[in-house]
């Protein structure tokens, strides 16, 4: 099987790719030498400091969809692109106030640890694993397809080859380096992404004479939409859909397994909350600058850039970089484009590695170790299964991405991931931590209702069935692209109905006290046992100091 390599291969980009890959592989090698067991594999020995974890969360969260996608949406539609950024950021307050410290205090490796703590373990764990695996796989496939499309466009490598390339590095990080390697790949990516964004933003501001208000006006002047470019409604035409999107964004993040899993990598609750605040500083600054990039692309490239920027405007930021560097064909232009391509590549790698790790933890820690083997397997076996699971999940994602090809609807898959996270994982997790009466039946019902209502509503949405003759989707009465406004209440309703309709579960109610005290005080929380990348033992240095 040979892969055609496009003629216009970007050698500069490839060499910068090689540097990024070399650094991350070195990190993986160091991490693999410190691989001592399950705590190290899933949670980096809980030796990641608050600030480090803040960078890693930012690296885990800011996908290529945020970087190129939102800049592209802002380039094309102005205000509505920014609406996404706001939701993605505000979501972290939900995480900070409701989940981060409680997860750290009462969990071990996975969402299911917290969710099944006081429940009948096997069904509750199975439900939690279902939620985790659905979110992780939808998100993973979306990212892989995005990776293929972007690398093909930016570097000139064929789509399938680009997917295999990305998938292979992702698997090397996870399988050999576990959470420690994944964390450092995410930290490196966050630094690269922030640096590139800051440099581009400074260039854009320089273009408009350092006056941000001029940037707004120049962007507006270059848009055929005029005034409408700076107000809502160009992309999100239906008000109720906008609200529904908002619900999905602000609650979805609090149900993303790869983000929640990061809280198990820090030594204590203090480090967990500190890391969220570090993350929002980075992510917030990043989104403000993304606006500058989107507007900058509009001001610099104008309407003429729309076609070149491709579907969803994904290539607007790279094209802007090329233009700011001196234009196509110049040394500076090529270099800027190559750097942005490499940053996008690092961005994708960091996100997919986090996703695969969270999915493999659900397979090995939840499904295999606790459900199949009743916790009677050895630690060695559990880590081995985690590695096999990572390989399997990664391979399946690569195959689906290649079979689906570049035509696979990425925004549909991302929407689905957020919808399931908000409607299945978040309600069950929140209620298990806060509602005494909540029981196994409620948790299982809630996760099932949340997951399947999200999937069903997304399938019948106009995103999937673009109507030729009608405005709506497959069914005239239902035309929401974002299911949140229906599926999130359904998820909560499922939790509630399942609980009140089933008999009282004495154990679940009794052990609520234990989970409650543990999650709020950190009493008996898992301690760090591992060493950091540099060999520093956990908990010795002021790990949680800000």
């Amino acid at each position: 099987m040979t892969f055609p390599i496009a003629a216009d291969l970007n050698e500069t980009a490839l060499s910068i790719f090689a540097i990024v890959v070399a650094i991350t592989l070195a990190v993986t090698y160091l991490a693999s030498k410190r691989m001592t067991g399950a705590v190290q594999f899933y949670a980096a020995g809980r030796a990641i400091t608050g600030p480090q974890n803040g960078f890693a969360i930012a690296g885990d969260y800011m996908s290529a969809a945020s970087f190129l996608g939102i800049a592209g949406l802002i380039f094309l539609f102005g205000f509505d692109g920014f609406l996404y950024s706001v939701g993605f950021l505000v979501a972290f307050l939900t995480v900070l106030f409701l989940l981060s410290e409680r997860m750290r205090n009462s969990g071990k490796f996975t969402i299911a640890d917290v969710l099944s703590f006081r429940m009948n373990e096997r069904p509750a764990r199975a439900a939690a694993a279902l939620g985790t695996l659905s979110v992780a796989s939808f998100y993973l496939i979306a990212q892989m397809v995005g990776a293929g499309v972007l690398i093909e466009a930016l570097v000139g490598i064929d789509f399938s080859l680009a997917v295999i390339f990305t998938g292979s590095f992702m698997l090397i990080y996870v399988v050999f380096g576990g959470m420690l390697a994944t964390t450092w790949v995410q930290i490196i990516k966050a630094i690269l992404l922030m640096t590139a964004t800051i440099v581009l933003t400074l260039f854009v501001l320089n273009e408009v004479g350092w006056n941000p208000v001029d940037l707004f006006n120049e962007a507006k002047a270059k848009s055929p939409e005029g005034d409408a470019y700076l107000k809502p409604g160009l992309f999100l035409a239906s008000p109720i859909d906008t609200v529904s999107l908002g619900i999905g964004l602000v609650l979805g993040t609090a149900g993303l397994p790869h983000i929640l899993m990061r809280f198990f990598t820090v030594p204590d609750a203090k480090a967990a909350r500190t890391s969220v605040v570090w993350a929002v500083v980075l992510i917030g600054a990043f989104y403000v600058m993304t606006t500058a990039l989107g507007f900058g692309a509009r001001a610099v490239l104008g309407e003429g850039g729309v076609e070149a920027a491709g579907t969803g405007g994904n290539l607007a930021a790279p094209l802007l970089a090329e233009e700011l560097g001196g234009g196509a064909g110049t040394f500076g232009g090529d270099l800027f484009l190559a750097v942005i391509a490499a940053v996008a590549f690092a961005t994708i790698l960091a996100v997919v590695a986090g996703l695969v790790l969270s999915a493999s933890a659900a397979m090995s820690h939840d499904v295999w170790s606790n459900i199949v083997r009743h916790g009677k397997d050895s630690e060695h076996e559990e880590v081995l299964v985690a590695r096999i699971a990572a390989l399997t999940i990664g391979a399946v994602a690569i195959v689906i991405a290649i079979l689906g090809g570049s035509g696979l609807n990425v925004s549909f898959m991302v929407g689905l991931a957020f919808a399931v996270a908000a409607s299945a994982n978040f309600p069950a997790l929140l209620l298990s931590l806060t509602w005494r009466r909540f029981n196994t039946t409620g948790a299982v019902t809630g996760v099932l209702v949340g997951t399947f209502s999200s999937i069903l509503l997304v399938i019948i949405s106009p995103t999937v069935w673009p109507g030729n003759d009608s405005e709506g989707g497959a069914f005239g009465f239902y035309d929401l692209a974002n299911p949140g406004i229906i599926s999130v209440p359904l998820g909560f309703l499922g939790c509630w109905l399942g609980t009140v309709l089933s008999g009282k579960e004495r154990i679940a109610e009794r052990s609520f006290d234990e989970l409650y005290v543990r999650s709020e005080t950190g009493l008996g929380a898992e301690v760090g046992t591992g060493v950091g990348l540099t060999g520093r033992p956990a908990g010795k240095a002021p790990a949680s100091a800000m």
Partner: protein
Amino acid sequence: MPEEREGLATESGRVTAGPDHHPEIDWIAAEQSPEFRDLIKKRRRFVLPATVFFLAWYFGFIILAGYAEDFMGESIYEGFTVGYLFALTQFIMVWGLGWLYLRKADRDFDPLARKAAETAVAAARGERIEGEPSGHERPTGLAGGREEMRPS
């Protein structure tokens, strides 16, 4: 009780649960202790209004963006619109509330949490709960053994 795991844990120096997983603690009493109630009350006094506020501010923004496009598109200063100002306040809100929460947690919640935990541990040391076989260790409660929970 997964004995194999526990056994393996000690041999390899692995810690399945924290070294202080406190099987002796009476969690019901701990939950009702004045120290714990105090922690919950103080934390809730911050987190509840803060959550209501941020959700209201955020959904206010989203609903206006959905239903009041023209208002959001009005220029405040030379083309800079109401919508963008409102959006930027969301960023300020996230940073502000984040910083405030960190400060509150460091100054108020952490000492209270420590006190509540110490009280629970001290109570367990002072009086062994009847019926709980002494020296019996239960992992954090994550690896199983649910049926062995406090017999009462």
